């Protein structure tokens, strides 16, 4: 699929003065792609040149289109000497290569020079004409969409989630090539920038190919990283989750004839179909796909047993008859085996996603992580990066086996990272072991799975939360009784239930019956790397919890060094864990989400920083307090001291409970049932190998009081630990913080957002450092940084810092660098107070803050909480009919959906009409807003939205690390932004010292990201992340250098306030489709 790339250079502005004599510049532009170069005319004597060039056309392979960046160089013409470069613009044309994204890149780009920073701007227009060519052996993967977002992007629906894709490419680092000795820093920086740009293009193309092989059309949760290995090279690696996404638009959802991109789905033969008439006709197949969008996944989990059962939807093999379903228990093991084997056929059943379509996540086992210490050696053959590949394969294998030990067949919220110091490299991977609902997974190879329903626990379902769906898919047994049960059953506890066998637990654990359903067993604490599932019920608010730790290490070389590090790692992990656990208890909470443990290696120390968001899950037992036990009980004063501390701790817990509004209802003991007797052992970490650990630890509670967590103070270290526990000050009132996407317990966001990056570098002053002083220093550094953030953002109160992302690095011997990126979002305090805790509302709000990704209809329907739906009887009837005939529910669901399709449409329209009336009564609405809300008119609406956001002088571009923009709706994804910049200076003092230098650079990076987004026609970057910020300084030489790598998804969003929604409801996203109905009805 070759293509034609067309570039037009329009004008420049604010150029620097290049000719001192005239105070002006004679600028011209070189446009380079691959090996071809074009030049504009010289525009003499102007700082605001108007080139208005012709269209420069490059005819190129799509492979090159994917790999190569477009290079635009602005130069100053000099008659007598060499032309001086003013600066460059690199434009990634990838967003132009898939149809749904941007069609043109046009706008003002900052002209960037690695030595001088931004020097004026240039206006460029870029277009691509692609020629279709279905070459099977192609090397390109044009058309595969990439998303940094770690959930299903808002305006898409996941048809299939295929699974893990990874790739890495290596090269020599230009900075370390011999030629670097004779070239200028600028040339060297540019070589590096160009190379990395090229490598990431290539990487993305290769990943794309893998996705195409899996028959996916997108990569979600794409995470690309650079390892600057110094002498031994440069590694660019990426992981992601391959998916088949379907654009959410009602046309696609309604018309069977429309081109559904879910080719795979069509190909699934429903041999076993018990309802042949539903599938016999050709046109019905696309409809079958559509049914997935209607059928909320909940229905599956509801009917399934919640524990170990895995369900798979590939009834290809002969096993699929529903009769086995009723056999329950004995069949469980076999079933599990089979589903597992299905997933095991994937090399790595990993998912980089952290938030999932409802119903995808069945159970969560706990955090799994693996680390390994490697010695770097020169990469001899860049074309075959086997060693690096092998290293990662090894780690992933380990993760997989950990997951298996937890009774889980998959790992979600998976991520990988490295820390490099000289020639030692720590590779880390972590994720959350989980049991998934295979409905979303598709196996291209041999399916050994069967459709299964275990009905041994009727009425209990794991992940049902939205009320509307109950009506959609009533229980097969007795829908009324189910409904009755649901009233008093707080749902959304299923994922907390243990996936492993309680008799054969991988580690000592303290299990109780689930506090929500009282049917299944749950651990007393749960650690995960994912976001809080949208349907989980929590009490109170969440908070950011960090564990911080330093360990001194002797300076050593090579192998000795690696050994030393390996030996230290387990202790660090253990301590990080203890800290997390203590702090969690201190907060009165029982679960951690978004856990990220970073271990950084330096010359003479190791740093550990774990961040997570603590919450109180209703399903888990109330955490006990912390009890302090002294070792020497005879000493009176000591005793007194201990009791004093104990009091302090108790006070803190009480205070925190109040602060975070944790007031779980008192549940009489007898209802809960007695805790399951477990062999209790000393709390410890289970560790399969020296460098890895299973993080679902169970701390022992054997000091008589079963719910108290005991800290033994046996030496000064322990004393320090307890003290340090108490030093963490809560954020000032009106502030909350978390490192997940959504702050549990807050759902009424207002529209003000402020994304920021803050960097601190601290020098450790004293020579005789001890672990304690080091810990204290590090702790202070982080705490002060947080305090500063709270102070700076005080004008936004009440607000919440979301997605707080700390990164620690040790650039030099005595330097600690902490980088924080987060977003502050304001919320409405009053509404928060009013928020009722009723089940329906809660789920509504959640759904709104999250997304309407999957469930178009269910969501719409549930927003109006009308109670029984007009069409539920029909469904019930069908449902019961099918259940009588023993048809597996999944198929049942399918068939029901199909047969009631028309019926549903009708009722839907009825409902819409109803709503339309409400709208008319409730508020005056403009036609535009109605149109905007309508999914039907999306194309139409897009055209309208573009000029709307282009109104202001310099268009505001929002940036956020979150996947959504509060109070707004993302209407289009324009492509991935992945940028790499180097900045260097030889006049550090003149630029305001290190702070001035880095401040300016980060501001410039933001500016370049915004400019690229604006040029794509977007008005925001979501899932923004600063993946790397490598800062090096040499104050003696007045020099500094910094490398920054950022990425995110460029999007167009529309403010919901413009949509002015139903006055009776809270302004939540889920209302939108309902408003859209207004248009259909009118």
């Amino acid at each position: 699929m070759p293509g034609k790339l067309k570039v037009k250079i329009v004008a420049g502005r604010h150029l620097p003065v290049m000719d001192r004599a005239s105070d002006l510049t004679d600028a011209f532009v070189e446009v380079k792609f691959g090996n071809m170069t074009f030049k504009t005319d010289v525009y003499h004597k102007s700082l605001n040149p108007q080139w208005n060039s012709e269209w420069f056309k490059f005819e190129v392979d799509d492979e090159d289109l994917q790999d190569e960046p477009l290079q635009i160089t602005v130069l100053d013409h000099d008659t007598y000497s060499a032309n001086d470069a003013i600066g460059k613009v690199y434009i990634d044309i990838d967003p132009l290569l898939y149809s749904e994204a941007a069609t043109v890149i046009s706008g003002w780009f900052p002209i960037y020079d690695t030595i001088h920073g931004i020097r004026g701007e240039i206006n460029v227009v870029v277009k691509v004409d692609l020629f279709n060519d279905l070459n099977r052996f192609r090397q390109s993967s044009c058309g595969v969409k990439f998303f940094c977002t770690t959930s299903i992007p808002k305006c898409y629906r996941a048809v299939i989630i295929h699974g893990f894709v990874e790739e890495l490419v290596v090269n020599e680092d230009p900075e370390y090539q011999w030629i670097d000795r004779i070239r200028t820093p600028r040339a060297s920086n540019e070589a590096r920038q160009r190379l990395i740009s090229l490598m990431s293009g290539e990487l993305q193309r290769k990943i794309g190919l893998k996705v195409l092989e899996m028959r996916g059309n997108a990569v979600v949760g794409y995470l690309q990283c650079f390892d600057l290995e110094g002498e031994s090279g440069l590694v660019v690696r990426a992981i992601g989750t391959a998916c088949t996404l379907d654009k959410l638009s009602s046309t696609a959802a309604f018309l069977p004839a429309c081109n559904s991109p879910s080719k795979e789905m069509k190909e699934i033969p429903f041999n076993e179909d018990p309802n042949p008439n539903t599938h016999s006709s050709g046109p019905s197949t696309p409809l079958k796909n559509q049914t997935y969008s209607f059928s909320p996944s909940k229905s599956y989990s509801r009917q399934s047993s919640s524990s170990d059962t895995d369900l798979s939807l590939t009834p290809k093999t002969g096993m699929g008859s529903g009769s086995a379903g009723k056999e329950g228990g004995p069949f469980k093991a076999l079933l599990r085996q089979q589903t597992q084997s299905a997933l095991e056929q994937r090399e790595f059943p990993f998912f980089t996603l952290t938030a999932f379509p409802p119903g995808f996540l069945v159970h969560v086992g706990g955090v799994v992580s693996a680390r390994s210490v490697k010695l770097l050696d020169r990469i001899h053959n860049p074309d075959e990066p086997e060693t690096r590949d092998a290293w990662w394969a090894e780690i992933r294998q380990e993760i997989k086996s950990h997951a298996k030990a937890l009774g889980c067949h998959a790992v979600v919220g998976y991520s990988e990272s490295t820390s490099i110091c000289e020639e030692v490299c720590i590779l880390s991977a972590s994720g959350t072991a989980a049991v998934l609902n295979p409905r979303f997974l598709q196996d291209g190879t041999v399916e050994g799975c069967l459709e299964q329903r275990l009905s041994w626990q009727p009425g209990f379902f794991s992940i049902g939360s939205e009320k509307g769906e109950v009506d959609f898919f009533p229980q097969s047994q007795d829908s009324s009784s189910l409904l009755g049960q649901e009233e008093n059953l707080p749902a959304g506890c299923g994922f907390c239930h243990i996936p492993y066998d309680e008799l054969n637990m991988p580690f000592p654990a303290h299990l109780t019956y689930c506090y929500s359903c009282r049917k299944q067993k749950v651990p007393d604490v749960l650690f995960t790397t994912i976001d809080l599932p949208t349907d989980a019920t929590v009490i109170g608010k969440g908070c950011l919890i960090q564990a911080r730790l330093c360990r001194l290490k002797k300076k050593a070389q090579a192998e000795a060094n690696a050994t030393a590090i390996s030996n230290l790692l387990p202790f660090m992990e253990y301590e990080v864990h203890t800290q997390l656990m203590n702090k969690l208890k201190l907060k009165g909470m029982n679960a951690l989400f978004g856990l990220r443990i970073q271990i950084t290696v330096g010359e003479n120390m190791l740093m550990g920083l774990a961040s997570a968001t603590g919450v109180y899950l209703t399903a888990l037992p109330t955490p006990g307090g912390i009890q302090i036990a002294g070792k020497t009980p005879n000493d009176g004063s000591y005793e007194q001291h201990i009791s004093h501390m104990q009091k302090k701790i108790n006070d803190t817990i009480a205070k925190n409970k109040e602060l975070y509004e944790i007031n779980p209802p008192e549940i009489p003991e007898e209802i809960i049932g007695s805790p399951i007797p477990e062999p209790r052992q000393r709390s410890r970490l289970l560790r399969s190998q020296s460098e890895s650990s299973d993080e679902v630890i169970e701390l022992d509670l054997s000091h008589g009081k079963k719910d108290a967590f005991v800290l033994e103070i046996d030496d000064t270290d322990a004393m320090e630990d307890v003290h340090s526990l108490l030093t963490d000050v809560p954020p000032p009132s009106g502030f909350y913080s978390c490192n997940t996407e959504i702050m549990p317990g807050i759902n009424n966001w207002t529209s003000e957002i402020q994304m920021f990056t803050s960097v601190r570098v601290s020098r450790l002053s004293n020579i005789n450092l001890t672990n304690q002083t080091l810990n204290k220093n590090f702790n202070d550094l982080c705490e002060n940084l947080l305090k500063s953030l709270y102070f700076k953002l005080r004008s936004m109160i009440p607000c919440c810092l979301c997605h707080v992302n700390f990164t620690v690095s040790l650039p030099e011997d005595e330097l600690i660098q902490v980088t924080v990126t987060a977003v502050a979002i304001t919320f409405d305090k009053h509404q928060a107070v009013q928020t009722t805790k009723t089940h329906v509302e809660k789920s509504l709000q959640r759904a709104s803050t999250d997304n309407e990704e999957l469930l178009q209809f269910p969501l719409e329907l549930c927003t109006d909480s009308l109670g029984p739906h007009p069409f539920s009887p029909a469904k019930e009837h069908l449902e019961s009919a099918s259940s009588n005939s023993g048809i597996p529910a999944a198929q049942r669901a399918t068939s029901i959906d199909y047969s009631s399709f028309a019926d549903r449409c009708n009722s839907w329209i009825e409902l819409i009409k109803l709503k339309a009336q409400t709208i008319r009564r409730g508020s005056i609405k403009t036609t535009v807003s109605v149109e905007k809300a309508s999914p039907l008119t999306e194309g139409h609406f897009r055209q309208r939205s573009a000029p709307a956001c282009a109104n202001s002088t310099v268009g505001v571009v929002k940036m956020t690390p979150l996947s959504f923009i509060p109070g707004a709706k993302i209407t289009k994804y324009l492509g991935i932004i992945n940028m790499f910049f180097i900045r260097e200076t030889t006049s550090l003092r003149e630029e305001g010292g290190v702070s001035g230098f880095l401040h300016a650079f980060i501001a410039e990076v933001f500016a370049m990201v915004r400019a690229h987004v604006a040029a794509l026609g977007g008005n925001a970057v979501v899932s923004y992340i600063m993946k790397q910020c490598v800062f090096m300084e040499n104050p003696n030489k007045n020099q500094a250098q910094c490398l920054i790598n950022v990425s995110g998804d460029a999007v167009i969003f529309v403010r919901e306030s413009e949509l002015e929604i139903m006055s009776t409801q809270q302004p939540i996203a889920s209302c939108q489709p309902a408003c859209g109905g207004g248009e259909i009805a009118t």
Partner: protein
Amino acid sequence: MTNELDIFVGNTTLIDEDVYRLWLDGYSVSDAVGLRVRSGILEQTGATAGVLQSDTMDHYRTFHMLERLLHTPPKLLHQLVFQIPPSRQALLIERYYAFDEAFVREVLGKKLSKGTKKDLDDISTKTGVTLKSCRRQFDNFKRVFKVVEEMRGSLAGNIQQHFLLSDRLARDYAAVVFFANNRFETGKKKLQYLTFGDLAFCAELMIQNWTPGAVDSQVDDMDVDLDKEFLQDLKELKVLVADKDLLDLHKSLVCTALRGKLSVFPEMEANFKNLSRGLVNIASKLTHTKDVRDLFVDLVEKFIEPCRSDRWPLNDVRLFLNQYSASVHSLDGFRHQALWDRYMVTLRSCLLRMYHD
């Protein structure tokens, strides 16, 4: 443990108005921190001094980076590096170009040259405005002056267009530029009682009526220089005092009209010739640069001081000046009625504004 590097960069640039004021006022970081501490911010927010120090540093750095853009405000609007909401941009610009009354009175009418800049030390000591702030204000004057000096079109309009200032501030700058260009003396002791507002008021009237722009809107320097032709013509007014009959007639006309209406009638009657001579002589001398510069000194010496010493109430001054200018129209032998009005309308308003203690 010391922080070698400590930065905060927001996607939307954070602007703290209080810190901006401190920065504009020329306080050092440590002074600013001290002042903030005294404002009670620590108690309000529960922050520590370290946090305040870091925050102040950060804002100062941002302002320092913005300063380059503030020198050419349209650049601030079009630049891409700092994302600042329009209302904030306006605030930044307006505050940056705002100046202190005390300072502007010191430099008003002075040449905006290096020489003056060297005197800023003294001005700083005298006015209590920090040297840094003096420099900024002086540089603002100079920058605006340089940009609009040779431009066509309305002076205030040009300033507003090139510096995006509010209407009020642009007019003040027009006055500063006008004074600097014509080098009116404003520093004499007897002029000290005049506020910048008084002088700016006069400048605005003079720009409206006495510059080439008043008659022709398409000339260079139209609003910056006084209309040479007009000044030349003003010599013709001399006849009002040189011709004894005309002077007597003028006096009798004014006295008849004002008899019984002024509380200071006898004093007026006694002083009429002196006052009239003073006002007409000022007009006829304006061809000399030196006398132009002394315009305000002369106005005070020749008119305001005599009136003040006789304790004329402001209202009497108004009645007198109205009658004084109007009566000229009844003088049959006087042909320069239009010229007289162009001169006197402006002068009358200026004098009234300047007539206070």
